[in-house]
């Protein structure tokens, strides 16, 4: 990873994202191979501590001490580092100034998460590790966190984050590695990865009487269709019996599809279209859905 980049590890739960990031953080020893962070391998003792001075780490499910206030928690974390932001500075970074006197237990999920990120930012890190920073948060809190990450990057910081939200990866990350079963199955910019689908749009539909066996072939013959998948779960909610088409030109393929169905006397029970996403990339690579795991 070059400095200043935001790199995303994307994958379903259990894909090995957390294990990967914890190996990189020096918290889990690797079974094999060597890890270098900021050009330094992990070492015990003083060298390891010197490296930790330069990192900011947020772990997936750390619960900070309930009984301490926000300020006290940050003061504690600050005390571990030789060089650090003041509590006020870091509170401003994560916009928690109003909650400075609140005990951790009284914070909302989004506020707790911002405090966790604040604990990672307090050391003025060069490299920030975020493990599923927005999982389980409401859309508003999620956008606040994205903003924090953007500001950190704008100030020259490098970020490595894991997520299972493709939208998050698309918005935040310069490059993404898609992981499944402990392996990287795709690597590139979000745009490049989506381009591997060969098409930019996805049409999902379902038929009220189920899909006839020979329909897929007929669909492939339609102009501009690059792939046909029968989703047991159509992602957009197609349900059993749904189909998903990857198409290059929505405005040509969609009318052709409707005509085809009408000719064969098939009735639509659902029809949606969207721009191709990393989610579609994951489905194309694994045949499984990313989100609903």
């Amino acid at each position, binding site marked *: 990873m070059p400095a200043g980049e935001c790199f995303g590890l994307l994958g379903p739960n259990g894909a090995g994202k957390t294990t990967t990031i914890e190996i990189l953080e020096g918290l889990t020893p690797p079974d094999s191979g060597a890890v270098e962070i900021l050009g330094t391998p992990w070492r015990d003792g003083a060298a390891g501590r*010197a490296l*930790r*001075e330069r990192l900011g780490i947020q772990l997936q499910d*750390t619960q*900070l*001490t309930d009984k301490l206030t926000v300020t006290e928690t940050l003061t504690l974390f600050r005390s*571990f*580092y030789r060089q650090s932001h003041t509590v006020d500075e870091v509170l401003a970074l994560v916009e928690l100034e109003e909650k400075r006197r609140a005990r951790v237990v009284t914070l909302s999920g989004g506020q707790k998460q911002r405090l966790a990120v604040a604990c990672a930012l307090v050391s003025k890190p060069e490299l920030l590790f975020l493990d599923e920073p927005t999982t389980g948060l409401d859309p508003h809190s999620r956008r606040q966190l994205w903003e924090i990450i953007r500001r950190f990057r704008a100030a020259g910081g490098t970020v490595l984050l894991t997520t299972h939200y493709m939208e998050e990866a698309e918005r935040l990350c310069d490059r993404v590695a898609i992981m499944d079963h402990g392996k990287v199955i795709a690597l590139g910019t979000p745009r490049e990865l989506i381009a591997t689908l060969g098409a930019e749009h996805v049409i999902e539909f379902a038929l009220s009487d189920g899909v006839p066996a020979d329909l897929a072939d007929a669909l492939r013959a339609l102009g501009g269709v690059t792939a046909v998948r029968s989703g047991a779960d159509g992602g957009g909610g197609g349900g059993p019996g749904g189909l998903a088409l990857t198409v290059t030109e929505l405005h040509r393929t969609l009318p052709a599809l409707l005509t085809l169905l009408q000719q064969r006397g098939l009735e639509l029970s659902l029809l949606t279209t969207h721009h191709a996403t990393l989610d579609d990339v994951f489905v194309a690579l694994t045949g499984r859905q990313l989100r609903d795991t």
Partner: protein
Amino acid sequence: MFQLALARMREFYREPEAVFWVFGFPIVLAFALGLAFRNTGPGELQVGVAPGAGDSALAATLDSSPRLVAAVLDSGTARLRLRTGRIALLVVPGDPLVYRYDSTRTESGLARLEVDDVLQRARGRSDRVAVRDDRVVAPGSRYIDFLIPGLLGMNLLGSGIWGVGFSVVQARQRKLLKRYMATPMRRSHYLLSFILSRLVFLLLEVVALVGFGWLLFGVAVRGSFATLAVLTILGAFAFAGLGLLVASRAKTIEGVSGLMNLVMLPMWILSGTFFSYSRFPDAMIPFVKALPLTALNDSLRAVMIDGAGFLSLGAPVAIVMAWGAVSFAIALKIFRWR
């Protein structure tokens, strides 16, 4: 490390229940036991007189003694009261007079002597030798004098093991330990912060309990306060080490609770907190004496009751220090940081 210790202390005093169990509970216990076993001199003994010829005269004679309270009771009531210990002895009129009592009860033995003495004198027995009572109260001989140092030791054990054990395991369960590992914090600082925060609370604990004993029961510290302070610090260090050891591997609060009980229960019973361990069989005594709480209790009593100096306490102090050092070293070695 200072900030860690500060965080520990804040966590503690913001938990009102924990504060009660550490400070309030031993004081309540000392108060209750002190009241129950207060020394009010020999006290008055309750005796009964069964119905029969001259029963009320007999009762009046006995009642006139300052140490006896006597009443005529019907046979059913008398039997019940004798069985439940409400009367120490029952006098059955007749010739000969019958004293009915349970000879295993200390009180009944005393009542037997007193009743016989009063009745024989009333019938004209004269004393051959003139005697005079000279009552002394030796300081430190009361039960409360024995109890307060024991409670102090028990409290150091409890707060050391609970205070350290629970918060370590809680931090581990909440993945907080792992989070600390992700910072440049030194591991030894984390463990030492527990000892530091324990020392601060220790001061409060000792002052509270000793002050309470002194104010309410007049339990004095006959040795020097400096010696007492050094002893309690060593005790707290030993038990914090033991607490760290207990918590060094456990992953859940339930798991660590079981271990804590395993460590503490034998010591509560064996180490002479509430009663002297000399009641145990001789073969057990060396083992009992090797326990850290026994050693600490013995030394605390030596200082508070007998006014012993620090240097005379070599063996028990060595035992306490060895427990602390060994368990701290093992804990540091096997500690599960994740």
